[in-house]
C-alpha cells in the first residue's frame, strides 16, 4: 500500500460484560469497549453495569485514553420507552462516549435528553447497503455498525460513497438470521429475542420434512445428523489487512457473555496484528503464533462468514464439534519480585505443582513453564491451589506484571 492511500489505524472495540472484563479488555489493548447497562440492552443474562460501575469503568478507560460505549439496542415496545430520557442523560453525565442503538425511538430519546451523546446504529438494524448508510449519515449519525451479511466489496463501496465511520465485526459468534429479523425465541419460548430474552432457538436441532402428495417424509435418515442452522464463529485473524485497507473505522469483537480469558486473549491478538501491520504494511506477514493464540480462546470452528463469499455448508457447525483444546484462566498475576523470582498469583481455577501452565500479558508477551513451587499467603508450601480467589506465591522463571494471566489446558 502506498503512503498516499494509507489508512488511519482503526479502533479495536472489545466487549465487556462486567467491570473486571472492561479492565482486562482495555489493559490488553482495546481502544474502546462496549458494555450493557441495567436497561435497554440485549443481554439480560450478562453481568451488566450499574451507573457506579460505569463511572468506575470510564475513569479506568480514561487513564488509557480508551472509550466506553453502552449498548442500548433493544427493539422497544411502548412500555419500554419510559425512563429512556433519564437513562441517556445519566450516561452522558457519567462520560460514556457513545450509545449503540437500533430503535429510532431510543435514538430520538437520546437526542432530546443528551444531544451531545454520540449515537451509533447497532447491527440489530441490519444495515446492508450504502444508501441506508447515507440515510443515517444525513440523520447526523456519526457511525454505523454493519449487518454481518455484507461482503468486503460491499463495505468498500460504502466507504467510497459515504463519509461516515463504519464499524464491522471481526471476531465472535453470529446470529444466523439477519440480526433483529428473528423471532424464533418469541414463538417457541415466549421470550422476546429483541428485548434481551433470546433463547437461541436457532441453535436447536430440528426434523426437516418434505411435504408431498403421499404426506410428509422426513429428510433425515437415521444415520444423518438432525437439521441445524448454527454457523461457525467469525474470525478475521488470518485476513485482517483486508479490512484495514478498506479503512473500516472500528473493528468489533463479539462477546459480552464471554470470559475474561477470552476477552484478554482475543484482544491481545488483534492488537498485535493491527500494530504490526501499521508499523510496516509492506512487510506484514501473518505470524502462526497469532492464529494459535486465537484457537486457545475459540469455542467453535472459525469462518470468515460473508466477507469473501456467501457462506456454504462448510461454514456451518455440522457433525461432531472440532476438537479444540480448551484452556482455563488459572491465575491472575498481582505482583512479581524480580529478586526472588516469586509471583503473587490470585487463583481463578485450580492449579498445582507439576502443572504445565502458560503465562501471558499485553503486547503478546507469553511463555510456558512447569510449576515447581507454590506457597500460601503465610509462606506454607502447597501442592495445589484449590480455593477460588486464594492468594498464592509461585516460583516463575521469567518476569511478570500485574494483569498478566496464567492459563492451563483443561
Amino acid at each position: 500500500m502506498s503512503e498516499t492511500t494509507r489508512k488511519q489505524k482503526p479502533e479495536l472495540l472489545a466487549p465487556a460484560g462486567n467491570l473486571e472484563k472492561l479492565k482486562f479488555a482495555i489493559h490488553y489493548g482495546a481502544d474502546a469497549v462496549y458494555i450493557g447497562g441495567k436497561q435497554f440492552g440485549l443481554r439480560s443474562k450478562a453481568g451488566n453495569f450499574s451507573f457506579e460501575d460505569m463511572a468506575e469503568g470510564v475513569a479506568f478507560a480514561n487513564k488509557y485514553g480508551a472509550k466506553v460505549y453502552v449498548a442500548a439496542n433493544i427493539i422497544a415496545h411502548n412500555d419500554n420507552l419510559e425512563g429512556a430520557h433519564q437513562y441517556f442523560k445519566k450516561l452522558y453525565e457519567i462520560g460514556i462516549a457513545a450509545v449503540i442503538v437500533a430503535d429510532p425511538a431510543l435514538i430520538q430519546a437520546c437526542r432530546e435528553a443528551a444531544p451531545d451523546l454520540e449515537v451509533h446504529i447497532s447491527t440489530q438494524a441490519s444495515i446492508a447497503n450504502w444508501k441506508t448508510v447515507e440515510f443515517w449519515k444525513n440523520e447526523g449519525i456519526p457511525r454505523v455498525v454493519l449487518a454481518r451479511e455484507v461482503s468486503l466489496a460491499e463495505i468498500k463501496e460504502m466507504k467510497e460513497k459515504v463519509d461516515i465511520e463504519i464499524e464491522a465485526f471481526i471476531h465472535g459468534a453470529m446470529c444466523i438470521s439477519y440480526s433483529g429479523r428473528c423471532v424464533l425465541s418469541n414463538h417457541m419460548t415466549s421470550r422476546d429475542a429483541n428485548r434481551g430474552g433470546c433463547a437461541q432457538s436457532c441453535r436447536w436441532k430440528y426434523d426437516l420434512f418434505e411435504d408431498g402428495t403421499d404426506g410428509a417424509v422426513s429428510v433425515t435418515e437415521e444415520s444423518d445428523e438432525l437439521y441445524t442452522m448454527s454457523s461457525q464463529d467469525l474470525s478475521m485473524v488470518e485476513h485482517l489487512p483486508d479490512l484495514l485497507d478498506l479503512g473500516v473505522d472500528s473493528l468489533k469483537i463479539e462477546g459480552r457473555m464471554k470470559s475474561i480469558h477470552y476477552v484478554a486473549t482475543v484482544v491481545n491478538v488483534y492488537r498485535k496484528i493491527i500494530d504490526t501491520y501499521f508499523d510496516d504494511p509492506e512487510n506484514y506477514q501473518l505470524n502462526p503464533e497469532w492464529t494459535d493464540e486465537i484457537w486457545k480462546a475459540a469455542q467453535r470452528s472459525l469462518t470468515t462468514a460473508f466477507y469473501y463469499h456467501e457462506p456454504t455448508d462448510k461454514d456451518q457447525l455440522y457433525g461432531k464439534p472440532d476438537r479444540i483444546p480448551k484452556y482455563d484462566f488459572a491465575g491472575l498475576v498481582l505482583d512479581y519480585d524480580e529478586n526472588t523470582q516469586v509471583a503473587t498469583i490470585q487463583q481463578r481455577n485450580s492449579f498445582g505443582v507439576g502443572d504445565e501452565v502458560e503465562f501471558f500479558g499485553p503486547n503478546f508477551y507469553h511463555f510456558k513453564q512447569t510449576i515447581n513451587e507454590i506457597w500460601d499467603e503465610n509462606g506454607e508450601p502447597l501442592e495445589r491451589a484449590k480455593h477460588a480467589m486464594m492468594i498464592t506465591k509461585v516460583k516463575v522463571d521469567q518476569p511478570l506484571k500485574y494483569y498478566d494471566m496464567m492459563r492451563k489446558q483443561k
Partner: protein
Amino acid sequence: MTNSFQPELQATAKDLDEVKRLAEAGADALIIGHQDYGIRVAGDFTIDQIAEATTYLHEQNKRIYLLVNAIFHNEHIETLPSYLRELERLNVDGIVCGDPSIFQMIKDIDLSIPLTWNPETLSTNYQTLRFWHQRGLSRAILSNELALDAIKEIKQAVSFPIEIQVHGMTCIFQSKRKLVRNYYQHIDKAYDSDKPMFLKQEKKDETHYPVYEDVNGTHIMSNEDLAMVDYLDAILEAEIDGLKINGLLKSTDYNEKIVKIYREAVDTYLKDPASYQMKKTGWKQQIFAIQPEDRKLDTGFYFKEQIY
C-alpha cells in the same frame, strides 16, 4: 365508533388469476411483488403483470400495493430507482418497504408513491413509527409479536393509518444464508426447492414450521396460522385501518374462501355488531373446515404475554 370508519381488507396474491379471484371475493386491496425486491412474495409478478393487475383493480376501485420490502444490499440500490419509476408510472397505490434506504431514495428521485412501512419485527412502538412518519411513511404495518392492547395504544398515539395481519402464517426468521440447501449438501442428498418443506422441533411432533429458500435466503414461518375472524370486533372497535390476509404457501381456492369469510365478517360487524357476535363462531367453523390438516389456528401474540 364513527359510521365512516371503513377498514381496508388486504390479501396477498401469487398470480393474476389469484388477484382477480381475491378481488372478486371481496378484498379491497391486493399485495403483490417480485422476489428481486420483495421478501416472501406469494409469487413473482413481472412489470407487465403488475400493469395488468393495476388496471384490473383500479377499474373496480380497488387498490394495489407492491412489496419492495427486501433488506437491500448495494446491488439492489443500482436498479431500484428504475423499478420504482416503473411502479410510479403504473400508478400503483403504494409500496411496502422495510429498509431505511427507501426514505433516502424517495427523496433523491422525488418519488410520489405512498409508502407503507413494514420492517417486520422492528415496528413495535409508537415513537418509532412517529420517527418514520416524519421521514415520509404514509402507513405502517405493525410487528406480529405485539399484544392487541399495545396495538390499540399505538393506534391512538399516531396520526396515520396502521395495519395488522389477521389471517395466515407469519414469518419468524429470515437468514441471507441458504440453510436448507446447506443441510442437504451436508447429508449428501439432492435438494428440490420446489418441494414444500417444514421443520419440527426435536421431540415436539405436533410442531410444523414451514421453511423455504428464495433469492433472499431462508425463511421460516410460524407454527400456526393466525385466524382473527372471531376477534374482529376488538380490532374494528380500535379502528385498525388495514387488515391483512397472508396467503403465502396456500392455494388460491383456500385464499378465496378465506377472503370471502373475512369480507362477510367485517361487513357484518360494521353494519350490525350484534349479528357479528351471533355469527362469528360459524365463520371460525368454516375456516376449520378448509384448514390444511397440519396447520393449526391461533391468535398469535394478540393475547399473549412475552418475557425477556
